[in-house]
Protein backbone atom coordinates (compact mmCIF):
# COMPACT_ATOMS: atom_id res chain seq x y z
CA UNK A 1 0.00 0.00 0.00
CA UNK A 2 1.27 3.39 -0.85
CA UNK A 3 1.37 6.02 1.81
CA UNK A 4 3.24 9.24 2.25
CA UNK A 5 5.43 8.66 5.27
CA UNK A 6 6.29 12.30 5.89
CA UNK A 7 2.70 13.39 5.58
CA UNK A 8 1.44 10.83 8.10
CA UNK A 9 4.21 11.49 10.59
CA UNK A 10 3.68 15.23 10.39
CA UNK A 11 -0.07 14.92 10.71
CA UNK A 12 0.04 12.83 13.88
CA UNK A 13 2.14 15.41 15.70
CA UNK A 14 0.56 18.49 14.10
CA UNK A 15 -1.59 19.23 17.14
CA UNK A 16 1.52 19.35 19.32
CA UNK A 17 3.30 22.03 17.35
CA UNK A 18 3.23 25.55 18.67
CA UNK A 19 1.57 28.01 16.37
CA UNK A 20 3.47 30.84 14.71
CA UNK A 21 1.88 33.29 17.09
CA UNK A 22 3.38 31.49 20.07
CA UNK A 23 6.85 31.47 18.64
CA UNK A 24 8.66 34.58 17.49
CA UNK A 25 10.52 34.57 14.23
CA UNK A 26 13.86 33.37 15.56
CA UNK A 27 17.10 33.70 13.71
CA UNK A 28 20.59 32.61 14.65
CA UNK A 29 22.50 35.36 16.41
CA UNK A 30 19.52 36.69 18.34
CA UNK A 31 19.75 37.15 22.06
CA UNK A 32 16.68 35.45 23.48
CA UNK A 33 14.88 34.74 26.73
CA UNK A 34 13.70 31.14 27.07
CA UNK A 35 11.00 30.78 29.71
CA UNK A 36 11.06 27.29 31.12
CA UNK A 37 8.38 25.64 33.19
CA UNK A 38 9.98 23.87 36.13
CA UNK A 39 8.08 21.64 38.50
CA UNK A 40 9.58 21.50 41.95
CA UNK A 41 7.90 19.64 44.77
CA UNK A 42 4.48 19.85 43.18
CA UNK A 43 4.83 23.57 42.50
CA UNK A 44 5.38 25.05 39.12
CA UNK A 45 7.51 28.07 38.43
CA UNK A 46 9.14 29.70 35.45
CA UNK A 47 12.84 30.09 34.98
CA UNK A 48 14.36 32.31 32.34
CA UNK A 49 17.49 31.38 30.45
CA UNK A 50 18.91 34.29 28.51
CA UNK A 51 21.58 33.81 25.90
CA UNK A 52 22.62 33.94 22.29
CA UNK A 53 20.92 31.61 19.85
CA UNK A 54 23.89 29.89 18.24
CA UNK A 55 22.18 27.18 16.24
CA UNK A 56 18.93 25.61 15.18
CA UNK A 57 18.41 22.09 13.90
CA UNK A 58 15.63 19.67 13.06
CA UNK A 59 12.27 20.19 11.45
CA UNK A 60 8.75 20.24 12.75
CA UNK A 61 8.43 18.65 16.17
CA UNK A 62 12.12 17.76 16.22
CA UNK A 63 13.18 21.41 16.08
CA UNK A 64 15.91 22.13 18.65
CA UNK A 65 17.57 25.41 19.48
CA UNK A 66 20.98 25.84 21.09
CA UNK A 67 21.35 28.82 23.40
CA UNK A 68 24.67 29.92 24.82
CA UNK A 69 25.28 32.19 27.76
CA UNK A 70 28.11 32.97 30.14
CA UNK A 71 27.52 32.06 33.78
CA UNK A 72 30.23 33.01 36.27
CA UNK A 73 32.82 33.21 33.50
CA UNK A 74 31.91 29.78 32.28
CA UNK A 75 30.19 29.16 28.96
CA UNK A 76 26.89 27.30 29.32
CA UNK A 77 24.98 25.90 26.37
CA UNK A 78 21.52 24.51 26.56
CA UNK A 79 19.55 22.74 23.87
CA UNK A 80 15.81 23.28 24.03
CA UNK A 81 13.18 21.33 22.11
CA UNK A 82 11.25 24.23 20.61
CA UNK A 83 7.85 22.53 20.75
CA UNK A 84 8.15 21.00 24.20
CA UNK A 85 5.47 22.14 26.65
CA UNK A 86 8.29 22.82 29.09
CA UNK A 87 9.38 25.76 26.98
CA UNK A 88 6.63 28.14 27.95
CA UNK A 89 7.67 31.20 26.02
CA UNK A 90 10.52 32.61 23.96
CA UNK A 91 11.23 36.31 23.70
CA UNK A 92 13.70 38.09 21.49
CA UNK A 93 15.78 40.56 23.42
CA UNK A 94 18.06 41.74 20.66
CA UNK A 95 18.63 40.90 17.03
CA UNK A 96 22.26 40.05 16.42
CA UNK A 97 24.03 40.03 13.11
CA UNK A 98 25.17 36.55 12.12
CA UNK A 99 26.65 35.54 8.81
CA UNK A 100 26.64 31.85 9.58
CA UNK A 101 23.98 29.26 10.39
CA UNK A 102 25.89 27.92 13.39
CA UNK A 103 27.83 30.30 15.62
CA UNK A 104 30.15 27.72 17.15
CA UNK A 105 33.04 30.13 16.74
CA UNK A 106 31.65 32.07 19.69
CA UNK A 107 32.88 29.25 21.92
CA UNK A 108 36.45 30.28 21.28
CA UNK A 109 35.83 33.98 21.77
CA UNK A 110 36.69 35.76 24.98
CA UNK A 111 35.67 39.19 26.23
CA UNK A 112 34.33 41.86 23.94
CA UNK A 113 34.78 39.80 20.79
CA UNK A 114 32.06 37.50 22.12
CA UNK A 115 29.48 40.09 21.21
CA UNK A 116 27.60 40.17 17.96
CA UNK A 117 26.83 43.32 16.05
CA UNK A 118 23.26 44.53 16.22
CA UNK A 119 21.36 43.92 13.08
CA UNK A 120 20.49 47.32 11.70
CA UNK A 121 18.36 48.68 9.00
CA UNK A 122 19.83 48.60 5.53
CA UNK A 123 22.69 46.22 6.00
CA UNK A 124 23.60 44.96 2.58
CA UNK A 125 24.03 41.29 3.30
CA UNK A 126 20.84 40.89 5.35
CA UNK A 127 17.97 41.21 2.97
CA UNK A 128 15.07 41.69 5.33
CA UNK A 129 16.95 43.46 8.08
CA UNK A 130 15.02 46.65 7.41
CA UNK A 131 11.70 44.93 7.83
CA UNK A 132 12.65 43.21 11.04
CA UNK A 133 13.81 46.22 13.02
Amino acid at each position, binding site marked *: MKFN*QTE*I*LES*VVAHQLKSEEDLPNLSVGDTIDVHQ*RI*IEGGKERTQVFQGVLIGMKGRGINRMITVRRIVANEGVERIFPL*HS*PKVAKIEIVRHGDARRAKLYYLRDRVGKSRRLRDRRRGMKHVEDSGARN
Partner: protein
Amino acid sequence: MPPFILGRKVGMTRYYTEDGKNIPVTVLQVGPCVVTQVKTSESDGYSAVQFAFEDVRPRLSTMPLIGHDAKAQTAPKRLHKELRLDDDAAASEFELGQTVLADVFADVKFVDVTSSSKGKGFQGGMKAWGFKGKEASHGVERKHRSPGSIGGHGSEAGNSGGVKKGKRMARRLGGFTTTTRNLDVVSVDAERGLLIVKGTVPGPNRGIVTVREAVRLNRRKQTTVKAG
Protein backbone atom coordinates in the same frame (compact mmCIF):
# COMPACT_ATOMS: atom_id res chain seq x y z
CA MET B 1 -13.43 -10.49 19.16
CA PRO B 2 -9.72 -10.69 19.93
CA PRO B 3 -7.89 -7.58 18.72
CA PHE B 4 -5.64 -8.61 15.84
CA ILE B 5 -4.69 -6.72 12.70
CA LEU B 6 -2.11 -6.50 9.94
CA GLY B 7 -0.45 -3.32 8.77
CA ARG B 8 2.72 -1.52 7.88
CA LYS B 9 5.20 0.46 9.89
CA VAL B 10 5.15 4.12 8.89
CA GLY B 11 8.03 5.42 10.98
CA MET B 12 8.96 7.00 14.27
CA THR B 13 8.40 10.42 15.75
CA ARG B 14 7.96 11.95 19.20
CA TYR B 15 5.15 12.93 21.50
CA TYR B 16 5.31 15.39 24.34
CA THR B 17 3.13 14.74 27.36
CA GLU B 18 1.52 17.71 29.05
CA ASP B 19 4.17 17.78 31.74
CA GLY B 20 6.84 17.97 29.09
CA LYS B 21 8.03 14.37 28.94
CA ASN B 22 9.20 13.18 25.57
CA ILE B 23 7.82 9.84 24.38
CA PRO B 24 9.36 8.11 21.38
CA VAL B 25 6.51 6.65 19.33
CA THR B 26 6.14 4.42 16.31
CA VAL B 27 3.31 5.06 13.90
CA LEU B 28 1.71 1.99 12.32
CA GLN B 29 -0.78 2.04 9.52
CA VAL B 30 -3.08 -0.92 10.13
CA GLY B 31 -5.97 -2.42 8.26
CA PRO B 32 -8.43 -2.54 6.77
CA CYS B 33 -8.23 -6.32 6.96
CA VAL B 34 -10.76 -8.74 5.53
CA VAL B 35 -11.71 -12.07 7.07
CA THR B 36 -11.03 -14.54 4.26
CA GLN B 37 -11.56 -17.80 6.11
CA VAL B 38 -13.10 -18.98 9.35
CA LYS B 39 -11.83 -22.35 10.51
CA THR B 40 -13.73 -24.49 12.97
CA SER B 41 -12.96 -27.82 14.55
CA GLU B 42 -15.61 -29.32 12.33
CA SER B 43 -14.21 -28.04 9.05
CA ASP B 44 -10.47 -27.96 9.74
CA GLY B 45 -9.92 -29.72 13.06
CA TYR B 46 -9.09 -26.50 14.92
CA SER B 47 -10.48 -23.01 15.44
CA ALA B 48 -8.88 -20.06 13.70
CA VAL B 49 -9.62 -17.05 11.62
CA GLN B 50 -7.67 -15.84 8.60
CA PHE B 51 -7.18 -12.16 7.88
CA ALA B 52 -6.08 -10.66 4.58
CA PHE B 53 -4.44 -7.30 4.10
CA GLU B 54 -3.63 -4.94 1.28
CA ASP B 55 -4.90 -5.14 -2.30
CA VAL B 56 -2.55 -6.55 -4.84
CA ARG B 57 -2.60 -6.56 -8.64
CA PRO B 58 -4.16 -9.87 -9.74
CA ARG B 59 -1.07 -10.59 -11.81
CA LEU B 60 0.97 -10.77 -8.61
CA SER B 61 -1.44 -13.18 -7.00
CA THR B 62 -2.17 -16.77 -8.05
CA MET B 63 -5.37 -18.26 -9.37
CA PRO B 64 -5.96 -20.46 -6.29
CA LEU B 65 -5.46 -17.46 -4.02
CA ILE B 66 -7.66 -15.19 -6.15
CA GLY B 67 -10.39 -17.84 -5.89
CA HIS B 68 -9.86 -18.07 -2.16
CA ASP B 69 -10.24 -14.32 -1.74
CA ALA B 70 -13.24 -14.27 -4.07
CA LYS B 71 -15.06 -16.60 -1.70
CA ALA B 72 -14.94 -13.81 0.86
CA GLN B 73 -16.20 -11.36 -1.79
CA THR B 74 -12.96 -9.42 -1.81
CA ALA B 75 -10.31 -8.38 -4.29
CA PRO B 76 -6.99 -10.28 -4.37
CA LYS B 77 -4.95 -9.56 -1.23
CA ARG B 78 -1.22 -9.53 -0.72
CA LEU B 79 -1.01 -11.00 2.73
CA HIS B 80 -2.95 -13.69 4.58
CA LYS B 81 -2.40 -14.46 8.22
CA GLU B 82 -4.13 -16.80 10.58
CA LEU B 83 -5.04 -16.22 14.21
CA ARG B 84 -5.58 -19.31 16.34
CA LEU B 85 -8.66 -19.15 18.56
CA ASP B 86 -9.55 -21.04 21.72
CA ASP B 87 -12.75 -22.65 20.49
CA ASP B 88 -15.44 -22.59 17.84
CA ALA B 89 -17.49 -20.14 19.88
CA ALA B 90 -14.75 -17.54 19.40
CA ALA B 91 -14.59 -18.35 15.71
CA SER B 92 -18.33 -17.87 15.30
CA GLU B 93 -17.85 -14.20 16.13
CA PHE B 94 -16.19 -13.79 12.77
CA GLU B 95 -17.94 -13.76 9.46
CA LEU B 96 -16.50 -14.38 6.03
CA GLY B 97 -15.82 -11.08 4.27
CA GLN B 98 -16.02 -9.05 7.46
CA THR B 99 -13.80 -5.96 7.59
CA VAL B 100 -11.51 -5.35 10.56
CA LEU B 101 -10.37 -1.81 11.28
CA ALA B 102 -7.98 -0.19 13.74
CA ASP B 103 -10.85 0.50 16.15
CA VAL B 104 -10.58 -3.07 17.51
CA PHE B 105 -7.69 -1.58 19.53
CA ALA B 106 -9.75 1.30 20.89
CA ASP B 107 -9.86 -0.15 24.42
CA VAL B 108 -6.53 -1.96 24.33
CA LYS B 109 -3.72 -0.59 26.50
CA PHE B 110 -0.80 -2.80 25.50
CA VAL B 111 0.02 -4.60 22.28
CA ASP B 112 2.54 -7.06 20.88
CA VAL B 113 3.94 -6.21 17.47
CA THR B 114 5.45 -8.94 15.30
CA SER B 115 7.47 -8.30 12.20
CA SER B 116 10.60 -9.25 10.37
CA SER B 117 13.68 -7.46 11.68
CA LYS B 118 16.17 -5.66 9.47
CA GLY B 119 18.68 -8.02 7.88
CA LYS B 120 22.25 -7.36 8.96
CA GLY B 121 24.00 -10.06 6.98
CA PHE B 122 26.69 -12.34 8.40
CA GLN B 123 28.02 -10.70 11.54
CA GLY B 124 30.82 -11.46 13.98
CA GLY B 125 30.47 -12.34 17.65
CA MET B 126 30.67 -8.75 18.84
CA LYS B 127 27.68 -7.48 16.89
CA ALA B 128 25.70 -10.71 16.87
CA TRP B 129 26.01 -11.63 20.54
CA GLY B 130 27.49 -8.62 22.25
CA PHE B 131 30.89 -10.20 22.91
CA LYS B 132 33.49 -7.81 24.21
CA GLY B 133 36.18 -8.73 21.72
CA LYS B 134 39.78 -8.21 22.71
CA GLU B 135 41.80 -5.30 23.88
CA ALA B 136 42.93 -2.49 21.65
CA SER B 137 46.51 -2.88 22.78
CA HIS B 138 48.61 -4.87 25.33
CA GLY B 139 49.97 -7.07 22.63
CA VAL B 140 46.75 -7.85 20.76
CA GLU B 141 47.42 -7.98 17.08
CA ARG B 142 44.85 -8.39 14.28
CA LYS B 143 42.38 -10.04 16.65
CA HIS B 144 40.58 -7.11 18.21
CA ARG B 145 37.09 -8.35 17.32
CA SER B 146 37.66 -12.09 17.65
CA PRO B 147 35.44 -14.10 20.03
CA GLY B 148 38.37 -15.65 21.90
CA SER B 149 38.30 -19.20 23.19
CA ILE B 150 35.30 -21.32 22.24
CA GLY B 151 35.98 -24.22 24.55
CA GLY B 152 38.93 -26.42 25.27
CA HIS B 153 40.15 -29.58 26.81
CA GLY B 154 37.73 -30.50 29.61
CA SER B 155 36.04 -27.16 29.67
CA GLU B 156 32.93 -28.66 31.20
CA ALA B 157 32.85 -31.39 33.82
CA GLY B 158 32.07 -34.83 32.42
CA ASN B 159 32.95 -33.83 28.89
CA SER B 160 36.30 -34.25 27.33
CA GLY B 161 36.67 -30.91 25.69
CA GLY B 162 35.42 -29.92 22.30
CA VAL B 163 33.02 -27.21 21.25
CA LYS B 164 29.56 -27.51 22.79
CA LYS B 165 26.48 -27.48 20.63
CA GLY B 166 24.82 -24.10 20.33
CA LYS B 167 28.08 -22.24 21.02
CA ARG B 168 27.50 -18.63 20.11
CA MET B 169 29.56 -17.73 17.08
CA ALA B 170 29.48 -15.44 14.09
CA ARG B 171 26.21 -15.91 12.26
CA ARG B 172 23.68 -14.38 10.01
CA LEU B 173 21.92 -11.63 11.94
CA GLY B 174 18.55 -10.02 11.46
CA GLY B 175 15.84 -10.74 8.97
CA PHE B 176 14.02 -13.09 11.33
CA THR B 177 10.57 -12.74 12.79
CA THR B 178 10.68 -10.82 16.03
CA THR B 179 7.99 -9.79 18.46
CA THR B 180 8.22 -6.68 20.59
CA ARG B 181 6.00 -7.27 23.56
CA ASN B 182 3.89 -5.01 25.71
CA LEU B 183 4.13 -1.72 23.87
CA ASP B 184 1.90 1.03 25.24
CA VAL B 185 -0.83 2.15 22.90
CA VAL B 186 -0.57 5.93 22.70
CA SER B 187 -3.45 6.61 20.38
CA VAL B 188 -5.75 4.95 17.87
CA ASP B 189 -7.08 6.75 14.82
CA ALA B 190 -9.63 4.37 13.34
CA GLU B 191 -10.60 6.73 10.55
CA ARG B 192 -7.14 6.83 9.03
CA GLY B 193 -6.15 3.40 10.31
CA LEU B 194 -3.29 4.69 12.42
CA LEU B 195 -2.08 2.98 15.55
CA ILE B 196 0.55 4.80 17.57
CA VAL B 197 2.60 2.82 20.05
CA LYS B 198 5.31 3.82 22.46
CA GLY B 199 8.78 2.55 21.64
CA THR B 200 10.34 0.71 18.77
CA VAL B 201 9.02 -1.93 16.42
CA PRO B 202 11.29 -4.34 14.53
CA GLY B 203 11.82 -3.99 10.80
CA PRO B 204 12.20 -1.19 8.30
CA ASN B 205 9.75 1.61 7.62
CA ARG B 206 7.03 0.32 5.29
CA GLY B 207 7.68 -3.20 6.59
CA ILE B 208 4.73 -5.45 7.33
CA VAL B 209 3.66 -5.74 10.97
CA THR B 210 1.19 -7.89 12.85
CA VAL B 211 -0.43 -6.37 15.92
CA ARG B 212 -2.28 -8.22 18.67
CA GLU B 213 -3.26 -7.47 22.21
CA ALA B 214 -0.40 -8.14 24.64
CA VAL B 215 -0.54 -11.69 25.95
CA ARG B 216 2.03 -11.55 28.72
CA LEU B 217 2.21 -8.45 30.86
CA ASN B 218 4.58 -7.62 33.64
CA ARG B 219 3.16 -6.71 37.04
CA ARG B 220 3.19 -2.95 36.55
CA LYS B 221 1.32 -3.17 33.30
CA GLN B 222 -1.14 -5.70 34.69
CA THR B 223 -2.13 -3.21 37.38
CA THR B 224 -2.57 -0.51 34.76
CA VAL B 225 -4.93 -2.69 32.78
CA LYS B 226 -6.97 -3.62 35.86
CA ALA B 227 -7.19 -0.02 37.02
CA GLY B 228 -8.26 1.15 33.58
